[in-house]
């Protein structure tokens, strides 16, 4: 425990900063700030073509080991999470980073991810036509195969995934990168929920004033802001210190879930409705927690 801040770095490289900015712009143009609920179950507001035209799916590809760091992927995934757009960017990014077959493939790629308690693995976007599955990342055979038949995964519905009896072999380093990057995307989603909730409590009035002026509401949101800081710090920690990847990712996702719960509470009955859609990111977070947990059990 001998390091102090002089051996610690928390900032992404210029690559990561630029990617976050680019993805932010992509989301602004694609979603025009529309509420998540308006697209979470329908047509994605950004096409896969637009994503790959921007080169975002190959952002993580390494050339002789050179390229974006995990810290940079975190920055990109966090920015991407803000949009809660249902496209397989994170899995494709990681597949192309760790599989030559995936890198050579033009379309979106998915990964079979473990779930705890012996549940059948989860294949995000397994219901989407044209998505192919990587058989091994950094380990096992490096091939792409069609996604097999399975049952639709019912929690994280906007990811249109399946559960199927299929396996992607993962090197430990890849398992860690998946955990941290998924957690970073969840962190972005939580920041989005927090921003939307702040806007809501400034508008919504009860007792003749905005509910955001009640101290009980304020302090919950202050805690959510602290949780958002902590979640970001935890994914940075996980990205910078491989031994801490799973602990960092899990801690971050737990704080994201706390934030989502606060968002629902602060929006009252509306927050509890399917329509308003706060549950879409929350569902992603809970599934992410399961995946990170199972990855830790298998690879820690």
């Amino acid at each position, binding site marked *: *425990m001998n390091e*102090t*801040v*002089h*051996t*610690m*770095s*928390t*900032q*992404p*490289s*210029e690559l990561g*900063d630029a990617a*976050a*900015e680019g993805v*932010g712009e992509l989301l602004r143009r694609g979603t025009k700030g529309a509420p998540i609920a308006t697209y979470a179950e329908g047509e994605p507001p950004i096409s896969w073509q637009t994503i790959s035209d921007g080169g975002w799916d190959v952002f993580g590809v390494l050339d002789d080991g050179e390229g974006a760091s995990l810290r940079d992927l975190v920055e990109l995934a966090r920015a991407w999470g803000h949009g809660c757009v249902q496209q397989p960017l994170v899995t494709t990014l990681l597949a192309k980073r760790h599989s030559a077959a995936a890198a050579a493939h033009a379309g979106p790629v998915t990964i079979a991810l473990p779930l705890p308690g012996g549940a059948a693995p989860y294949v995000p976007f397994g219901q989407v036509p044209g998505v192919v599955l990587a058989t091994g990342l950094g380990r096992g055979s490096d091939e792409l195969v069609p996604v097999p038949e399975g049952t639709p995964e019912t929690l994280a519905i906007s990811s249109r995934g399946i559960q199927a009896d299929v396996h992607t072999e993962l090197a430990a380093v890849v398992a860690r990168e998946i955990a941290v990057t998924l957690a970073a995307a969840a962190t972005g989603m939580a920041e989005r929920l927090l921003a939307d909730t*702040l806007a809501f*409590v*400034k508008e919504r009035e009860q007792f003749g*004033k*905005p509910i*955001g*002026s009640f*101290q009980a*509401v*304020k*302090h919950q*949101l*202050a*805690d959510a*802001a*602290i949780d958002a*800081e*902590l979640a*970001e*710090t*935890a994914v*940075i*920690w996980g990205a910078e210190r491989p031994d*801490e990847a799973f*602990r*960092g990712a899990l*801690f971050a996702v737990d704080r994201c879930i706390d934030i989502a719960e606060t968002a629902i509470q602060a929006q009252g009955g509306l927050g509890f409705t399917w329509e308003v859609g706060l549950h879409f990111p929350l569902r992603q977070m809970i599934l992410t927690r399961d995946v990170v947990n199972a990855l830790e059990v298998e690879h820690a």
Partner: protein
Amino acid sequence: MTASVVRVPDLDLESFAARAEKWLTESVPARWRESRGRLSNEESDELRRDWDRKLWQGGYSGLSIPAEYGGCALGLAEEVVFHVLAGKAQAPDGFTRVGKTLVAPMLIKSGTAEQKAKYLPPLMRGDEVWCQGFSEPEAGSDLANIQTRARRVEGGYLLSGRKTWTSFAQHADWCFVLAQTQPDAPRYRNLSMFLVGMHQPGITLSDIKQISGAVHFAETRFEDVFVADSDRVGEDGEGWKVAMRVLGDERGGVETASRYVEIRSDVDLLIRTVGDRPALTARLRELDVRAELLRWQLAKVVDREVGDPERLLRSASVLKVMWSELWQDVTRFGLEVSPAADRDHWQYQYLEARAASIYSGTNEIQRNILSERVLGLPR
């Protein structure tokens, strides 16, 4: 997205750290390191006073204070590194904390040339100790409700009133006092800031014993104590402005660095003593993660937020809530699960830690700041 902040080159910071670590190892008195808990009050006070002078002689006093005022002209990163290393080396906590973290920045920002020349050198040398006279019986969280009066007289003021919770008062040579000078002026514009010598007639101290049994603060009464015009900081009526300028300072980072070391060593003690009890693993792991995140949060602040007042406001409140509540949770856990041999330690730590969410702005006030001034929620 802002461009990434240029970091202090690692090489420099690293060589600073190496130099500081070596100096600390050689300079921390063995007597303190080995028998700190068993020293008489007199010996403990003497070692702490001595430590302030040693810091000066070693060239580590006022790390981020400009050289023209006797400081080392380094940055927040060095302050943080030094405090972490000092904690690890079990260095004493001197008596100049209030002076260096509050008075020096206040004088540098708002003091006259004479005030700087008169007060900063002895403070940097470790010769003079300062205390802070802000809180009063009727002015706690509502600090602007100060009742202590300074009446105008020829050449200065006569100060009368009661300050409370004054840390270091028993050791202090000077107190910086916020007092009413314009009773009829509107709130926030009725106060002035004064530098008051503690060794003069009209000042009485009464010790206040804390829940832990320690006596670290006192009630301070002023009865017609003369303060010269030249010892007023800022204009008459500008005391609130002067005070706010220091309270919003970067001190949050330095305080967190010291706290991190204490919390880390408490969590390590828990890992050593109860780490093998499966029923406790989950809670211990959570505390361990939170302790590490405190350090990374601090590194994030050092990397990004130096010189950005808006971000500093946010990060000061975030850090304060983080470390104080973590420390309280750690000590509560220690109290509940510790083996008999460590009971005294945990009882003391637990009781002392209760103060952490009260001083430097209670955690409720921090949450008010975060929600109103950072998140922009309506008052």
